[in-house]
């Protein structure tokens, strides 16, 4: 939309350099970044972690933390030179002319202050309300971000609201004083797709109706493609490309942009398409159909998990220990099976019971009722606490969502991988174990010289490999993957997904792939199960579910996936009957 270029820019950043002081000397986070935003324009900054996209926006707001420093460059906003404005001027501009919304909305709100009061603080600070009208105006601001029952929500604390509601409150704070520029820093990362869609549409509607400019910072090229007029691609602190959205997708000029577009699962036909052309191994061989006689590897029937609300002592005294209907049915009578060598996707939004289901199969949680049969043995017969000693434990392993948090920070990569060998396989002999660890590291593509490093010395992708190597150390037959790539950059995700596909082809493991990302499920899974509110909504071959979904909820999920108009799509976009 080049029409924006003819207007004078609202914000112009020129040759911005930002440095961070670290123990090992200064690190440059932004290298001569130049960009402009016109009035009413939506500009996206896309890049992977460490690309300097957030740092650039913090520099514009002048809220870099203590270690960060603007070394050089000029920033001009509506005639005001931001780079040498003093703190008083900046503090007047923030929240009134330039606002910001953040990733992780619940943490972005003061946990012990009612949300209405937090909106009031901003209104009063920028003289948009006196103390008498503040409350009324705060409620109006909550209504503007489409929070139902705003007068009651005024008193709510952030922990009482869902993630999507918290983000609405953060948006209400940011837009309370009707600023000219809204900076959205990964505003929907960690939110469900349907919530993401609602939040993004809210931001778009509100900013368009006020003629505001928006700077959308995201790692998700698809999201930027759907909502932005123009996109800036950043890599390692540099702007590598700056284009109209259509041009960026149809004729990307820079190799990095091309790689980024390729790693985004939206456009990929097969899992190999995610990788750069010169690094593509041959397609993984198709897994032989499981022998008809063997029966399913895992069979789940009428599985139920009820969480009782514990209540206080008084409450328990009052009800004399009887259940009072406060119970929450997290998993409500589900049944499915997984064949040997099959890869099944379990998808659904947060709170749908998919993690509870995987925890029950892993025997980390006891089921309330129902049966889980694994290799013909009834798993629910063994209490969760005693399952670690069961011989079946070896055949059932898990890869966790956060590759960093799920590794012991004081154990080296080799120690983490050796742990199951020692405890479950009872291996002895340092030499044997080391040899086995090195073999596992080779299987997951982890260079041997990294084995003696601690988790904080490894990158996200390397940590993910350690987590996978640890899980496959005992040669499990079923691997439960709980959003294994959710915390990774797209290019790393591409590599890890391919690694998982190769491992499965080689060893014939079965996967239960728990995810909220339908695009990733499409590339990795044979079959998909859609869950909602503890129940299975729909189940079937991935191809069919994604191209011709039966349930309205599945259609809703598919429709919520951001899809830039300029990318080819492989997920069917069914018409949704909005209830």
């Amino acid at each position: 939309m080049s029409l924006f270029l003819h207007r004078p820019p609202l914000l112009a950043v020129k040759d911005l350099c930002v440095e961070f002081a670290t123990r090992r000397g200064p690190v440059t986070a932004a290298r001569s970044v130049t960009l402009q935003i016109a009035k009413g324009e939506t500009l996206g900054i896309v890049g992977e972690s460490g690309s300097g996209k957030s740092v650039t926006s913090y520099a514009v707001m002048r809220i870099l933390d203590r270690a960060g420093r603007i070394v050089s460059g000029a920033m001009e906003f509506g005639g005001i030179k931001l780079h040498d404005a003093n703190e008083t001027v900046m503090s007047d501009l923030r929240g009134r002319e330039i606002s910001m919304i953040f990733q992780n909305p619940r943490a972005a709100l003061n946990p012990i202050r009612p949300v209405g009061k937090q909106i009031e603080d901003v209104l009063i600070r920028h003289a948009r309300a006196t103390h008498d009208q503040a409350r009324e105006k705060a409620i109006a601001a909550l209504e503007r971000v489409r929070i139902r029952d705003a007068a009651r929500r005024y008193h709510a604390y952030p922990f009482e609201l869902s993630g999507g509601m918290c983000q609405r409150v953060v948006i209400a704070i940011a837009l309370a004083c009707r600023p000219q520029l809204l900076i959205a820093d990964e505003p929907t990362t960690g939110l469900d797709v349907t919530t993401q869609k609602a939040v993004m549409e809210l931001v778009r509607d509100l900013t368009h109706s006020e003629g505001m400019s928006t700077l959308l910072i995201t790692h998700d090229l698809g999201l930027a493609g759907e909502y932005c007029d123009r996109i800036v691609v950043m890599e390692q602190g540099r702007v590598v490309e700056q284009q109209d959205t259509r041009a960026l997708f149809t004729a990307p000029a820079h190799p990095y942009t091309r790689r980024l577009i390729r790693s985004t699962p939206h456009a990929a036909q097969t899992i190999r398409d995610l990788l750069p052309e010169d690094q593509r191994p041959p397609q993984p061989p198709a897994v032989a159909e499981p022998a008809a006689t063997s029966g399913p590897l895992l069979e789940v029937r009428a599985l139920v998990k009820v969480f009782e609300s514990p209540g206080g002592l008084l409450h328990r005294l009052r009800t004399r220990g009887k259940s009072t209907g406060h119970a929450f049915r997290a998993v409500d009578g589900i049944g499915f099976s997984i064949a040997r060598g099959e890869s099944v996707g379990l998808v659904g939004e947060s709170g749908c019971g998919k993690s509870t289901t995987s925890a029950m199969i892993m025997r980390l949680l006891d089921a309330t009722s129902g049966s889980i049969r694994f290799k013909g043995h009834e798993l629910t017969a063994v209490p969760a606490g005693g399952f670690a000693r069961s011989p079946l434990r070896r055949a059932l392993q898990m890869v966790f969502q956060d590759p960093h948090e799920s590794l012991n920070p004081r154990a080296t990569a080799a120690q983490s991988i050796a742990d199951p060998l020692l405890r479950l396989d009872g291996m002895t002999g340092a030499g044997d174990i080391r040899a086995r660890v090195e073999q596992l590291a080779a299987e997951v593509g982890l260079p041997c010289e990294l084995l003696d490093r601690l988790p904080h010395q490894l990158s996200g992708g390397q940590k993910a490999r350690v987590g996978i190597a640890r899980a496959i150390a005992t040669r499990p037959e079923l691997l439960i993957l709980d959003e294994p790539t959710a915390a990774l950059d797209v290019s790393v995700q591409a590599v890890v997904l391919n690694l998982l596909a190769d491992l499965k082809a080689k060893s014939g493991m079965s996967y239960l792939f728990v995810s909220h990302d339908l695009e990733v499920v499409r590339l990795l899974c044979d079959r998909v199960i859609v869950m909602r509110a503890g129940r299975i909504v729909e189940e079937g071959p991935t191809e069919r579910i994604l191209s011709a979904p039966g349930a309205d909820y599945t259609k809703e999920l598919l429709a919520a996936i951001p899809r830039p108009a300029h990318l080819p799509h492989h997920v069917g976009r069914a018409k949704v009957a909005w209830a």
Partner: protein
Amino acid sequence: MGQLSIILARCLQAIPTVFGIVVVTFLLTRALPGDPAAYFAGASATPESITEIRAKLGLDQGLPRQFATYLKDLSRGDLGQSISTGQPVAAELLKRLPASLELTLTALFLSVMTAIPLGVLAAVHQDSWIDQLCRFVVTAGVSLPTFFTGLLLIYVLYFLLGLAPAPLGRLDLLHVPPPHVTGFLVFDGLLAREWATAWSAFKQLMLPAITLALFTLAPLARMTRAAMLQALASEYLRTARAAGLSRGRVLMVYAFRNAMLPIITTLGMVFSFSLGANVLVEKVFAWPGIGSYAIEALVVSDYAAVQGFVLSMAILFVLLNLAVDTLYTLVDPRVRIDG
């Protein structure tokens, strides 16, 4: 759940704790080495007289019988008689408790008034001179034992400079204690309009209170600094800054109120152990508190007095924890749902 019902539930939960304390103090004092009867009978006692005294004290009966008697007395508020002084333990503790509380509360007030501003400033101006000062005070406070700082203060302020009065109890010899109202001499003096007495009591109080305050300052300042640093680095603070809120509001309403939570917890802990640290300070300053009473009783196996002391301290701890929990409930809305 409402705040009131949570607080009520906490009070109910305290009942089994108190009963447990009663059992444990009873058993512990019976396990103490030394025979109270032998001590009470004196150096020239015959075995017969010791047996007689033992029977009189009820020590010849089995433990369950003794415990039943103890419980019965306790329900009447009777903590038994001290063997060494012959006075009822409850009365003596009540007489001495205000002295200890006056000292502890003053010390705590002083240390809170210094530690919290110091910690906040150190966190806000990280690595500045005030942060270094905070670090120095914390290290000194932790590493110097109270009897040493007490003696040092006496040496400098009383012996060398003559600024402080002689460290001999709560009042100098020229003044008569004011009429008993609160048991805190400074307050009672002011209430009775005996200004000179109040001033004298205040001067006597200062040195031991400062000694104890120096000791309790360290953990408080350190926790304040850490909690503030954590709050300052939080995402909600970034939101507040990005919304242009004034520095004062960001620091006080957004950062400090959140930092209060760990500070309150630390305050409760510091209060508890400063009641224990009292014992040494009371000895050094000849302060007639319950700490020195307990030490004297322990030395002569005066079991009733020790038992009474441990029990009243334990109950004080329970009340204190109750107060901390209540305060926490008021500050942090998140506590209110999972009672």
